[in-house]
């Protein structure tokens, strides 16, 4: 181990932070902690400094302070991963979060790589989110929350579970919690409805001298009938958990079998205390959960009766009312709820229901209004009688509107779950005209009927009003959410940093801009100048358009290829083996190509290059119009990472109009060449396109370069990576460089086969359409 001397250390540090230049004393101060480190470690540290320094100088300082400490438990080969984690933390939560990693290497970094800190919600979401959705039959979100509970639209979970030493057990616990929370919704815990005079209500009101009101039928209202609602809620929840256990045994036997040891484990953690009945009940639940329905407790007590398949939430409510007195005194100090049980939050469930109802109402009214306003206006002589008839059948309606549900589903008295889906709302009658509902609206209407029992008449009358006002027709679609985070027309992109083999998150912002077209003689002159060439180009491109062509000499086809047949007959006569390929087939290969052209508008194109590019674009557009491929043209420039600019000259769908010609003529040199962001943006545009072949052609001169540290190797590597990303998304990139000599970095930056170098500007207008032709035929 040879330690470097101070001077050497300082020189190397000064090199690592270039192009920034620091004072000698500053460097001395910063590098001080590194004095006694071995050379191998220092080498690695300096490599990492090049990655950290451009992100944040303060973070780099902090890193150097902490690195000696860090190296006491890390090997220097782990430094790169550590730095990666630190940078990720910095970019998501700033210096504060990064410091956690810097200062507590053992807990925050090493444990995670050893896999000892349990499992996080983020890790399981990918696997268990579809699981939850599958269970529920509708999207059931998994979200981090302070407590475990469900509001029926989402399940709130701890952001990390580290109860068991084994990861698989922690994962299983997550799965179990989700299953139980779903079960509560599925067994109707939240839809508890206790009519006046039901046993639970009678027991509660008589014992505690409280009065039944309309609200008492629901969960919270019922709990409020007791002097201490929390105790009642606690008991009711236990009862429901017992029911959920039986339910899950029936529905998800595999899960319960797998969780057997886990339940037993949990049961062992409950202290044996004969006075604590809550603990006893929890143990009963866990035992039942572990051993399955066959060995469940006998139906001797009111609690154990809840394990039976026919128990309902009303039974749980009865149990809570009866057992309340016994638990009232000890209830407060009793065991905390079982982990998968979570807590009940009826208020949140109610809020979700209301929200859903409001959203459904709004959607329904809007959709129906659109339909109504699309109906032709009619004279309605029969209105009155019809209304009366309907009014008799649907007394709740306003007499002029009615939602018709086919009677076969409506009349049956089936349990709730079975009735769902059988009612189908086929059409709605408004003022005697029958309006058939399109499928999406039918589905929505069914959901509303499931929720409220019928389509409330005011929904329909509001829709009518909205239709009358023409509101529905004029309403614009909601603004598209995209990656346009920081306001309209601004897109945020990552940038590749080769020094840390990772992305700088959200590093660049790209502004979409429009070019103001200029009127002038440029386009006319160009067309005149290349007149002869243009005729040839158009002819060539017309040849490529052949969407239908006969292919001769096929093994099968629609027609006989007479030439081939005669040849074959001659061959037979001559004693030669005849060919089997005797048919003509009509091949129809429709061109299905989308191409985007990305044009360098940096200041270096000033003069001849700019003119040549513009001429080339005009010729290209003229040729492509013949061919009929979809194509778009964008120019790019900008300065620094926060102001990359993308100029739209023609988007994919826009026709080649005079305005587009004017924009091409208006292309003018701007600032610098940061190639990564525009390539990433156009890749995204192309990825959204469903053409079979997607082509991204860039047109630039020389190296990518920006005002900040985007130059040299960094710029080349980022450009290269952006092109690799494009390929990964199924986009074929092709790069055209206008330069006197083909530089050695080009093959690396663009990839061997994906570029061409044009050494003479004057050749560009002729070459570009040819290159495109070569690429696509």
């Amino acid at each position, binding site marked *: 181990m040879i330690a470097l001397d101070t001077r050497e250390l300082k020189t190397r540090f000064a090199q690592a932070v270039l192009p920034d230049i620091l004072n000698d004393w500053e460097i001395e101060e910063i590098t001080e902690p590194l004095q006694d480190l071995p050379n191998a470690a220092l080498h690695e540290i300096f490599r990492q400094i090049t990655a950290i320094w451009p992100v944040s100088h303060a973070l780099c300082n902090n890193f150097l302070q902490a690195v000696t400490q860090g190296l006491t438990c890390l090997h220097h080969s782990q430094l790169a991963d550590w730095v990666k984690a630190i940078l990720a933390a910095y970019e998501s939560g700033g210096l504060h979060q990064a410091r956690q990693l810097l200062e507590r290497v053992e807990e925050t970094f090493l444990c995670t790589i050893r896999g000892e800190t349990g499992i996080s919600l983020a890790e399981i979401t990918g*696997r*268990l989110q*579809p*699981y939850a959705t*599958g269970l*529920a039959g509708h999207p059931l979100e998994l979200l981090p929350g302070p407590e475990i509970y469900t509001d029926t639209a989402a399940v709130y979970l701890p952001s990390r579970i580290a109860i068991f030493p084994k990861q698989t057990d922690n994962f299983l616990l997550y*799965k179990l919690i989700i299953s139980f929370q779903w079960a509560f919704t599925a067994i109707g815990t939240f839809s508890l409805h206790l009519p006046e005079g039901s046993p639970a209500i009678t027991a509660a009101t008589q014992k505690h001298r409280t009065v039944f009101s309309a609200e008492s039928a629901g969960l919270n209202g019922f709990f409020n009938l007791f002097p201490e609602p929390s105790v009642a809620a606690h008991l009711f929840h236990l009862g429901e958990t017992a029911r959920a256990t039986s339910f899950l045994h029936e529905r998800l036997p*595999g899960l319960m079998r797998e969780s057997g040891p886990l339940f037993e484990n949990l049961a062992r953690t409950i202290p044996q205390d004969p006075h604590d009945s809550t603990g006893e009940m929890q143990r009963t639940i866990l035992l039942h959960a572990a051993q399955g329905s066959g060995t469940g407790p006998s139906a001797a007590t009111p609690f154990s009766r809840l394990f039976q398949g026919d128990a309902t939430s009303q039974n749980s409510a009865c149990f809570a009312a009866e057992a309340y007195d016994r638990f009232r005194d000890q209830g407060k100090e009793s065991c905390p709820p079982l982990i998968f049980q979570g807590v009940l939050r009826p208020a949140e469930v109610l809020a979700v229901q209301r929200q859903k109802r409001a959203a459904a109402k709004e959607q329904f009214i809007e959709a129906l209004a659109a339909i109504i306003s699309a109906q032709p206006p009619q004279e309605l002589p029969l209105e009155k009688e019809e209304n009366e008839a309907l009014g008799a059948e649907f007394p709740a309606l306003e007499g002029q509107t009615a939602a018709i549900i086919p009677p076969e589903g409506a009349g049956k008295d089936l349990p709730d779950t079975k009735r769902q889906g059988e009612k189908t709302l086929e059409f709605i009658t408004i003022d005697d005209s029958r309006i058939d509902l399109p499928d999406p609206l039918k589905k929505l209407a069914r959901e509303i009927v499931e929720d409220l029992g019928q389509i409330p008449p005011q929904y329909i009358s509001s829709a009518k009003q909205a239709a009358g006002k023409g509101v529905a027709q004029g309403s614009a679609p909601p603004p598209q959410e995209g990656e346009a985070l920081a306001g309209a027309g601004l897109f945020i992109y990552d940038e590749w940093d080769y020094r840390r083999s990772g992305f700088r998150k959200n590093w660049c912002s790209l502004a979409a801009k429009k070019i103001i077209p200029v009127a002038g003689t440029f386009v006319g002159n160009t067309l005149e100048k290349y007149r002869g060439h243009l005729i040839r180009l158009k002819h060539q491109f017309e040849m490529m358009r052949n969407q239908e062509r006969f292919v001769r000499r096929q093994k099968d*086809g629609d027609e006989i290829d007479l030439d081939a047949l005669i040849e074959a007959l001659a061959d037979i006569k001559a004693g030669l083996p005849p060919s089997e390929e005797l048919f003509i087939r009509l091949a129809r290969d429709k061109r299905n190509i989308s191409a985007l052209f990305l044009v360098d508008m940096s200041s270096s194109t000033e003069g001849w290059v700019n003119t040549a590019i513009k001429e080339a674009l005009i010729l290209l557009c003229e040729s492509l119009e013949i061919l009929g491929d979809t194509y778009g043209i964008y120019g790019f420039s900008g300065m620094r990472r926060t102001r990359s600019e993308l100029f739209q000259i023609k988007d994919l769908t826009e026709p080649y109009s005079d305005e587009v010609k004017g924009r091409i003529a208006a292309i003018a040199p701007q600032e610098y060449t940061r190639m990564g962001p525009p390539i990433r943006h156009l890749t995204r545009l192309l990825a959204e396109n469903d053409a079979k072949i997607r082509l991204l052609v860039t047109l630039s001169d020389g190296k990518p370069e920006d005002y900040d540290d985007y130059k040299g190797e960094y710029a080349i590597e980022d450009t290269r990576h952006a092109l690799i990303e494009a390929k990964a998304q199924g986009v074929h990139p092709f790069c055209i460089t206008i330069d006197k000599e083909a530089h050695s970095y080009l093959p690396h930056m663009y990839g061997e086969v994906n570029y061409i170098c044009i050494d003479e500007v004057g050749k560009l207008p002729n070459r570009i359409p040819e290159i495109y032709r070569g690429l696509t035929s």
Partner: protein
Amino acid sequence: MKNIAAEEHIITGKPFYLEQAEELHIARTAYNNGLPILLKGPTGCGKTRFMQRLAWELARPLITVSCHDDLSTGDLVGRFLIKGGEAVWMDGPLTKAVRTGAICYLDEIVEARKDTTVVIHPLADDRRELPIEKLGETLTAPPEFMLAISYNPGYQSVLKDLKQSTRQRFVSFEFNYPPPELEAGIVREESGIEQPLAEKLVRLATMTRSLKDSGLQEGASTRLLIHAGKLIKSGIPPRTACKATITETLTDDHEMLAALEEITSSIF
């Protein structure tokens, strides 16, 4: 191309089919009135089986053509072939069905090129005739002939939609996954497994179907359930059988596979 006699297309054993909403009755009535039928619905929900059953009940041969995007008019109507130095005409499946009074079933019609579909137009309206251009001949379909087509509207692609001029010639049937009790019955019957196991398979399928559009393109079809049932019946453990026949079949996405595994392991 080997010429198979139309009689060979006759279905001998009674195909198992559980009627859901009088569709067999309606189809028979359509047949008696010389009307063509259109079956739509997701893959593996019983469209082909329905055709087999119908053909069996009507005691007509069933000639099925699976359409693909290279299917030309010649592939349906017929073409000249060279045999021993002479051009010989060879009937295509559609012509054969018209000549022999069979049922011609064009499966996944939208996969075929649009110009190909047009040849069935004169057959599918009251003319009931098939012009064969190359022979200069027009065949009139006998009353026994029936045309049936199917397609899956779930692809939601503009290109894979049936033209109105085509679809408005048919009596249409919508097929969907049967309700759970019926579906369990079908799975039990077809694969020979016990009722509780069939119910579990159906539960699994229902869960995958609710993942449609949130990660899966399609949910598990009844056909897949029957496959799973058959493997289980032959002694393969349920989880393994479901992995092979359902989860791995539905998706290649690793996270989705893992999620489906979680569902399977919960149920079995």
